[in-house]
Each structure stands twice: as C-alpha cells, then as structure tokens.
C-alpha cells in the first residue's frame, strides 16, 4: 500500500482507518481471525462474496469493518470535495470519516451501506454493534487531531439508522428527507424505499449491500424480493458490492450465486465452529411399539433433571401447542420454577417475547420453552444447553438450534435430543454422523414466482418508472428469474396493465401503464398508496388478538381456532389457562380460569417433514444395526447370531425394538425398500418405508392408491409419518404382484404414450398423476391466498376499510374461483398449482424418491402381526377416527397384545399402561387429535358422514361411532 499522503490521500485514509480499527480490536483483547482479514481484503479489492460461519463467530465485524475501511475514506473524500475550503492544508488523515469539519451546513455522507436483516428484532442489536467501532473512530479522531478545531464534539461522520416496520414516524420522516450513511433494514422496507418516486436519488449512492442471515431468506419469496432489490441497486451502480452472511448449507456456491446474481465472488469460510455435542436423552425404558404423539411428556422427569443441572437451557419444541404443553408440565412439576422458566413463541405478544429475551440475555431465566421463534436473533450468552423435544427434522435446523448455546468462551455448543417416541431415538445418532460427515441440507431460491415479479413491477413503476426492455434485462440478472421466458414476462406486464392477456377480459382496469415516452408508471395515486402499504411477501395466518378483560394484550390465536371456541371454553395460552369471555372487534377477550380441562390452541404449522439428508442418515444407522444379521428371513430369529453394530448409545437403547423389527420383518437399508403386508380384522394393510418425509409419503400413498384404482375400483385409507405410509383396503389386494407395478416412476399407460421420455416429460406426467390423485384444487386454493396477496389482487389492510384477515382469506378463495371460471389461463393460478406441488407435496423429492425406489430392491414381508415400524402408522390412522378415550383403550390393548407376542419381556401392567397412554393424551396429542376439552367442532357431523360415505364403504367391520362429534380433519401444513 502506498502511504504517501500527498499523492494518495484516500489510500492513506484507508490505512489510517484500518489501523484505528486494529487498535479498537486490540483494546478489546480481540485478535482478527483469518477469515475476518480475508473478508476485509475481499471487500477492499471490490469483490462480492458470501461468508459462512456459525452465529456469534464475529461475522458482523468481518463485513462491517471491511466496509468501513473501504468506504469510510471514499465517502469522506467525496464529501470533502464538496467543501473545498476545508480540505487544503489540514492534515487530511485526521479528517477521515468526519464530515463535520465544515460548518454545520455539512451533512453525513449519503447512504453508502445497506444492511439487510431478516428480522426486525435484530435491527436494533445490529445497529448497536455497528455503532461501536464508529464511536471509537470518532473518539480517536478527536484525540489525535492536530487541530482540535477540525472536529466538532458530536462528530458522527457516518450516520447510522434503522428502517423497518417498527421505525417511529418522526425518524421515518427524517429518513424520507435524507437517509443515513448506513441503513439497517428488512427486505420489505427496502422495497418500500424502492417505491419512492425519488428512489434512484435516495438509493443510487449505495456502494455495498450486506445481507445478514442469508440462509433464512434464500429459500423463500422474501429472498426473491431481496434479489430483485439488489438487481435494482446494481442497475444504478454497476460496481455495487454485495456480501452475504449465512449459516453453513449444503449448497454454499449456489447460495452465493443466488445472492450475487452472477458466478464468481469470494466464498469465505468463517471460524471453524467450536466443539459441538449432539446427544440424546434416552428413555429409561424403550417402548417396542412406539406410537407418535405423546409429545415426549414421559421424558419430563429427565428433562427437569437436565434443566436443573445447567445454568440456562433453551427447550425447543416443534409446534406452539407443544411448547405450551411442555411449559405447563414443567411448571406443574416444579412450581418453584415459576418466574424462572418462561415460554416464547410467535403468537405471544411482542412485549412478552421481549421480556423473555431480556431475561435470557441477563441470565435471569433458568429455562425457556420455545419454538422456531428463537431460532434466529441475538445471541444469548448465558445459554449453556439446548434441548430439542421431538425430531429436529433436519441437520441444518439442528445446527442452527445447537448454535444458540455455548457462546461463553471455552464452552461447547450442546444440543440434546429428547425423543417423543422410540423411533426418533435413531435420529440422534443419525444427526451426529451427518454433521461429522458434513452432510447438511441444501436450500434453493424459488424459481421465477410471478406474484413477486408482479409486485416488483408495480414497485418499480412507482419508484421512477421503467422501460420494459431495460427492466427485463435487470430482472433476468437475478438467479430467480434468469430463465424468465418472454411469455411470462409479457404476461406479467399485461397483468399489471390490463388484468390479463386479453384487454376485453378486464375492462376499465389499469394499474400500471406506459406513458407517451414508453415509461411505465402508476397513474392512480390511490393505487400507489395502497401498493406501498402492501409491499412484502409475508402472509400471516388469519389471527385474532387475545386480551384480558380490561387488561393487557397477551398475543394472538388463529382465527379459525377462536371461531370454534364457545363462550366459557378454556384454552391454554401463554402458559396460562384462559376462559373465553367474548369475541369483539377481532379480539378474544379472556380471563384467567382454573380447574377446568384445557383445550389447547391448535396452530397450523409444525408438520415439517424430515429432510432427505437426515432421513438418509437414519437409514444408514438402521442398516448398521441390521448388518451381519442375514436378510432377516429365517435365521435372524436367532437373536444371538450375527450381531449388528450397535455402537452409539442411541442404537444400544433401541436394540430391543430393532431386534424385534428384524425378527418379525426386516430393517431398511440404503439398497432396499422395505414393505410389509398384513391382514387384520380391519382389512388388508400395506406398509412402505421410503423414509422420504411425510409430504412425499402423502403424495406417494395417494399416487399408489390412485394407480391401484385404475386397475380396479377400490377405496383406501391412508396414514403417513416421516418414515413411511400405510394403505388399508377393505378388500383383498395382491401386493406381491401389484406393488412392483405401481411403484414405477411413470405409470404404464403414460409410459406407452411417450416413447422417448425426457426428464421433463416424466416430470409432467407425474405431475398430472399426482394432481389427479389428490383433491388438488382445494389445496391450490389455499396456496393462492399468498399469491393473491403478494401480486396485489387483495390487500391486507387499507385505512378505512378495516378488513379482517379472515375477509382477505374469503376473498382470495373467491378470486380463485372467479379466475378459474372466467380466466383459467391466468398464470397466477398455474403458480398456485406449482407452489403446491413444489412446497407442500415436494414434487421434486417425490420424483427423486420414485426414481430411487426404482433402483432399490423391494423387500416385501408378509406379517403375522404389526411390527414396531408399522404400529405407529396404524395408530396415526386410528386417531383420526376415534375419540381419545377409545383411542387410549385401544392402543393400550394393542400394545399389550403385541408385547405378549414379542415374548412379554417388558413388564407391562395393562392398567398402568392404559393410564399412561390416557395421561399423555390429555393434552390432545400434538395438536392433531381433538382433546376432550377441545372446542366442539360443529362441522363434525358432516365430516363423519362424509367419511363414512367416502372411505368406510364396504369395510368388513363397522367403525365405532363416537358419541361426540369427532375432530375436524388434519390441518394443512402452514402456508
């Protein structure tokens, strides 16, 4: 570096800032990590890139100090050039970063760095972190200044600010006049800025965009929105630098490419994570016939023991209702922990959540039961342990949660899995192996979602307008729209201009139109205002506030849930039992209740499927256990022969279950597909274990049922879990002959129709089959709600209209129907179908599973009685039909019978078992089976009738008719 101040004042300033920042580091006894220096250098060389590391590893300062070194001087030099009087003789190096040397008329440098964070809540903490080195620099400039007169006391050369939905109006107004030098913001707020008429003036000065927690945005529409915004900024400044920060993913190169929009860039590996411990809290006694859904509460005493042993513990659950139940159970078991143990989930009021977060930061809380609401966010130093109740579902998710612990120096991150049923025990060993082998899930950007594009078109039309061809090139510069077809582009343009492809279909409608010069603009001010208020891609569930009578707001519940409650009903919320007093003005007014049986709120979501990466690791573990035990046909009954490998504590504890599975059937391996056929009083069962996650299993099960029905009319009942699925038929099915036929990728007649099949053809053919096999239009309609909202068909809120979110939902389905009938070619409908297939049915994974199944050896076992693997699937199906009371009795009876058949080695006191099962069902089983105290669903009648008409037809044995209306159908995964 040339340090001659006379010839290279800017270089000198850069050097000076770098030096000062090193001093700042040293004062804190920090030493720059190698990766931090790498990032500084990459930024100094004008490069873009992606930095990946675990949280709390110094990522923020790697990028932030890099930006300060590179742009602190540049921004300064520009500003000073505007004030020639201040430049000449003063020691240039001292004025670094200080724009205040000119009289009060001078301003901080214009917006230079945009810092995008996925969470509003992170903005304040980020702001504080960014401010620290700036304060130091200013201080140093004052001390070292040759001439004190050069600096004013409040020399904040780089101004720093945040802009999000939480920003106060006054600050917002000030920002509208002039943005700070560094702006911390969210993707949504950035888009709002892009819709300003003077967007180019306000944002054209940006030199660098930093995207924090990119892995959180990458895979969703918010990420696409971010890609489009970056493309806009790059259009204004071709030298724009982009730096992302991400947790480790399986496809980091792709993640970087998606962010930058072009290949190349520096992929920098952060500090290698400190020691990570993954272990499992093993039950004292492993049930050989596990059944999903007792929420792991049998593990409560052990969980309490673990919490007791650590200073601060985060207890992660997979659903909000599960977190409520665990919190309640903990407090009931340890009343002395009241005030020391807290609850945190997304439906709780912000104030409550902030209180809990503060308690975590200060270390006052002993444990917090939480959901994904604490996956992200600021680091809580005191957290020592993380417990994960139930399956972690994926390796990346497990790592993310594990990373929430062990931030204090010298302490490892530790995550302990708490299985909610026996089979989940394998997942601990599987996850550990996968992490050791570096197998982590990939995350990909959605491909050209038209709704986001439509929103962006209106945004850009507001933000100064656009020339169609130029904008097309810009949009195609993003990874998400790189392959955007001319057709789709023109459709989107037509849609914002006249509603659709044909002008006559949408008379009088004009949202965006080109003016005389060919610049597309929004002519209607009212529409402009409405659009700005509805920018964004986050569509929340319709929800209703929960508030004490004459008291505080405590959070929100699903509106559909609140609608089912009758006045006087009780439900568990925020760790308290509440009684509904009245519903008014979109608020559920409640008071504290006691003594009655709670009805647990059922939130959507939490039905996340097991990831392929983790599922593969599970199969590998099972194969280890099965190794050396023959093919499981004859000699495997001799359990002392050919021992499998039970190396890990998890497998050791599971040994009785796995041995039994192998003796009665077989264990799956990476080379085989295990299927089991069983005849019971209920009918002919087929169990298949592809280990592909519940969504894929649902698709596969429906597909097979549908294909079977093409051979001969038949009705099947279906049950799925993350490991496999069940098809139950009332009439005899020759699965040995038929299963291999229906398990092919493309069905026979389709295969015949298409001689030379390409991958695309296969894909399309399968797509049609899956859509035909499911009631796809109803599912797509739900998907359409988000699309209608993002594309601006419907509006979340508009002053004076006071629409509830519920009305929005109603009108989105209305739009869906009208579009289907009167404009079936509307591409947003197509998008809804595609998103349904991609996200909820995971069509690509389904296709991959089918392709893989084609290469596997099918092992079809004829069973005498249910196996440890098939039992949970049978229970899953039963719970849809029976009340809890009946279910508990039946499960207990079935377990007892099976245990007897298995040699009765486990002491099973029938009555005690029944009680245990009943106890664990009190809370309503994972929010999926209606608890007894649950709100009576009045649609129950139609539901029951509908079922008996649809799938019980012709079954040998009559279903027991529940005396109370049964529960409604299973909720969909969250949309």
């Amino acid at each position, binding site marked *: 570096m040339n340090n001659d101040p006379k010839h290279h004042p800017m270089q000198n300033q850069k050097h000076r800032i770098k030096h000062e920042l090193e001093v700042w580091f040293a004062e804190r006894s920090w030493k720059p990590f190698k990766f931090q220096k790498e990032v500084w250098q990459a930024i100094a060389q004008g490069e873009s890139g992606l930095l990946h590391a675990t949280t709390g590893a110094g990522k923020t300062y790697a990028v932030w100090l890099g930006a300060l070194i590179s742009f602190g001087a540049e921004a300064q030099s520009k500003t000073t050039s505007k004030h020639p009087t201040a430049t000449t003789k003063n020691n240039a190096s001292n004025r670094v970063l200080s724009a205040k040397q000119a009289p009060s008329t001078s301003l901080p440098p214009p917006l230079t760095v945009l810092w995008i964070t996925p969470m509003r809540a992170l903005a304040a903490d980020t702001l504080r972190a960014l401010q620290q080195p700036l304060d130091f620099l200013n201080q140093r400039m004052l001390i070292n200044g040759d001439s004190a007169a050069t600096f004013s006391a409040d020399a904040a050369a780089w101004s720093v600010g945040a802009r999000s939905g939480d920003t106060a109006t006054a600050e917002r107004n000030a920002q509208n006049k002039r943005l700070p030098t560094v702006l911390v913001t969210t993707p949504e707020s950035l888009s709002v800025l892009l819709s300003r008429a003077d967007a180019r003036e306000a944002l054209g000065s940006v030199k660098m965009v930093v995207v924090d927690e990119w892995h959180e945005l990458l895979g969703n529409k918010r990420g696409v929105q971010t890609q489009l915004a970056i493309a806009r900024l790059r259009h204004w400044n071709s030298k724009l630098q982009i730096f992302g920060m991400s947790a480790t993913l399986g496809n980091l190169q792709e993640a970087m490419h998606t962010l930058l929009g072009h290949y190349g860039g520096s992929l920098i590996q952060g500090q290698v994570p400190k020691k990570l411990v993954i272990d499992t809290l093993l039950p004292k006694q492993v049930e050989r016939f596990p059944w999903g859904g007792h929420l792991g509460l049998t593990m409560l005493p052990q969980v309490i023991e673990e919490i007791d042993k650590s200073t601060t513990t985060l207890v992660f659950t997979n659903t909000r209702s599960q977190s409520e139940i665990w919190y309640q159970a903990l407090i009931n078991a340890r009343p002395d922990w009241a005030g020391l143990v807290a609850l945190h989930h997304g439906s709780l009021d912000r104030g409550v959540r902030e209180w809990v977060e503060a308690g975590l930061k200060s270390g006052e809380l002993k444990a917090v039961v939480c959901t994904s609401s604490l996956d992200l966010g600021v680091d809580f130093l005191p957290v020592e342990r993380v417990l994960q109740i139930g399956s972690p579902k994926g390796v990346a998710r497990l790592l993310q949660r594990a990373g929430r612990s062990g931030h204090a120096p010298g302490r490892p991150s530790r995550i302990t899995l708490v299985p909610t049923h026996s089979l989940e025990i394998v997942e601990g060993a599987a996850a550990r192996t996968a992490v050791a082998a570096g197998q982590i899930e990939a995350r990909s950007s959605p491909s050209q979602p038209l709704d986001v594009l439509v929103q962006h078109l209106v945004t850009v039309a507001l933000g100064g307008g656009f020339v169609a061809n130029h904008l097309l090139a810009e949009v195609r510069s993003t990874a998400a729209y790189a392959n955007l077809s001319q057709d789709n582009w023109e459709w989107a343009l037509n849609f914002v201009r006249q509603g659709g492809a044909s002008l006559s279909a949408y008379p009088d409608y004009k949202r965006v139109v080109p003016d005389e010069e060919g610049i597309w603009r929004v002519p209607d001010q009212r529409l402009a205002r409405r659009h700005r208020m509805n920018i964004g891609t986050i569509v929340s569930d319709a929800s209703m506030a929960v508030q004490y009578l004459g008291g505080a707001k405590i959070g929100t519940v699903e509106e559909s849930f609140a609608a089912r409650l009758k006045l006087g009903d009780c439900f568990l919320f925020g760790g308290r039992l509440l009684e509904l007093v009245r519903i008014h003005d979109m608020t559920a007014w409640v008071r504290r209740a006691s003594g009655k049986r709670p009805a647990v709120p059922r939130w959507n979501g939490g039905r996340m499927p097991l990831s392929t990466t983790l599922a593969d690791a599970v199969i590998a573990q099972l194969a280890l256990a099965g190794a050396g035990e023959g093919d499981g046909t004859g000699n495997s009954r001799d359990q002392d022969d050919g021992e499998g490998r039970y190396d890990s504590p998890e497998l050791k504890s599971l040994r009785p279950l796995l041995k039994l599975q192998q003796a009665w059937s077989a264990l799956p391996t990476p080379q085989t597909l295990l299927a089991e056929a069983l005849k019971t009083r209920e009918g002919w069962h087929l169990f298949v274990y592809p280990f592909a996650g519940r969504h894929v299993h649902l698709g596969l099960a429906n597909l097979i049922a549908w294909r079977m029905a093409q051979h001969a009319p038949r009705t099947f009942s279906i049950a799925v879990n993350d490991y496999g699925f069940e098809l139950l038929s009332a009439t005899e099915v020759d699965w040995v002959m038929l299963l291999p036929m229906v398990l092919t990728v493309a069905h026979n007649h389709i295969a015949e129709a298409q001689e030379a099949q390409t991958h695309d053809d296969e894909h399309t053919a399968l797509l049609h089959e899956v859509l035909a096999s499911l009631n796809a239009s109803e599912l797509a309609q739900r998907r359409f709600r988000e699309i209608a909202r993002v594309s601006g068909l419907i509006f979340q809120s508009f002053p004076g209209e006071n629409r509830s979110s519920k009305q929005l939902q109603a009108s989105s389905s209305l739009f869906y129907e009208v579009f289907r009938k009167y404009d079936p070619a509307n591409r947003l409908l197509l998008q809804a179908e595609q998103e349904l297939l991609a996200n909820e049915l995971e069509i690509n994974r389904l296709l991959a599973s089918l392709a893989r199944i084609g290469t596997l050896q099918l092992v079809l076992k004829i069973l005498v009685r249910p196996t440890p693997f098939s039992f949970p699937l049978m229970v899953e199906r039963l719970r849809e039909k029976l009340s809890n009371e009946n279910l508990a009795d039946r499960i207990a009876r079935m377990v007892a019978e099976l245990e007897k058949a298995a040699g009765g080695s486990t002491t099973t006191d029938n009555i005690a078992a029944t009680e245990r099962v009943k106890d664990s069902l009190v809370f309503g089983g994972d929010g999926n089976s209606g608890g007894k105290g649950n709100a009576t669903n009045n*649609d129950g009648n*139609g539901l029951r009738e509908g079922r008996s008409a649809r799938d019980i037809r012709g079954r040998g044995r009559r279903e027991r008719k529940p005396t109370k209306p049964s529960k409604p159908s299973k909720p969909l995964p969250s949309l």
Partner: protein
Amino acid sequence: MMKAASTTKVHWAGIEVHLLAERAVWWPSAKTLFIADLHLGKAATYRALGQPVPGGTTHENLARLSALISHHAPQKIIFLGDFLHAAAARTADVLAMLDEWRALHAEVKMTLVRGNHDSRAGDPPSRLRIDVVDEPYLEGPFALCHYPQQHNTHFVLAGHVHPVCRLSGRGRDSLRMPCFVSEARQATLPAFGEFTGGWLVCDQPGRRLYPVGGEAVWCLPATDV
C-alpha cells in the same frame, strides 16, 4: 346420510317450497321465485377500484337467471336484497345487459326488497320495472327480508350473509359449499350471484343446513339437541 337431488322439497311455514341447486327457492303454489344477493356489477366495481377481476360474471348471473325463468315460468320473482353491488356497478355495460335481460322476461312481475348494497347503489332504473320495497315485505306466510331476523307473525326468508358450510372428509379432504339454512321461524338463502363469497355457518341444534354442490342440494342430518 345425506340425500341429494337437484331439487330438495322442504316445508317452511307449512308450505312446500323447493330448494334449487341454482341457489334459489321456488314456491310452486304461488309460482314465485326467491333470489337473494345477486350483486350485479360486483366485478366491474372491483375493476374500477383497481382490482383485476375478469369480466363475465354479470353476464353469467343473468344467463343463469334466464335459464331458471324458462324452466319454472314464474309469475313473480322476489329479490331478497343486494341486486346491484355498488354505485360503481352501474356501468353502461351492466345496465345494457340488464335492459336486454328484462325485455326477455317482460311478463314476469319483479320485486326487490332493499338490501344494504341497494341503499348505496341506488334503486334499479325504473325502466326495468322492478318494484322496490323495504323489508319486511309480506307475501302469504312469508316475511321477505334482506337481513336474517325474527318476525312475530310470519316466517322470514332472508339473504345478506351468503351462508356457506364446510364438509370435511378424511385426511386433507374438505369442501366449502354455499348452503340454505333453516331454523324454526326463518330461513336464509345462499347468494345467487357469482363472485359473492360466503360466511361460514356452523351446524347447531335447531338449525338445518342444505349445501349446494355438484348440481344438487344436499340435506345434512340435524344435530342432536
């Protein structure tokens, strides 16, 4: 079990009326047709507000109404409110379509019981020869209203809420259908209009639901009291 027929006969106020799959009620002995919530011009209203809704709904509404008239040959049609959706719905297109439609059925007597949308949209043009009255409009044993309500002496037929109900099957199967709702002293009709949406009605003792779907009117079993 459900019973399905394209027409379901029920007795309201001791009088036989037919619930039609076209989402209308036919009173055979009086040769009268009851239609609720037509919301003509709603799509046009939305478009005027900047929402892209495809055209064709108003045309379809009137075509369906014409088909009903040809089939039953009513002497009289009574609209239970919300004939036009809004003032913005009175576009030249919509009014021209209405004129043409009225001319086709010149002999049929038509009455509109004013609904909340009619108050804002204004009465239909007088050349359409539709008598406009306020609720309750008494005819035989029936009190014809827009808003569901109780009446001291008469059985109320009303609209306004666009009732729908939800039927759920096993697993993820579920269906939302417009429905007729009857109670002891009143009944509510589903909205006749296309593009009208609905309000979810729950089953409860003393209430009967008759969902409309698959070109049939179904009869759900009564809830146990």
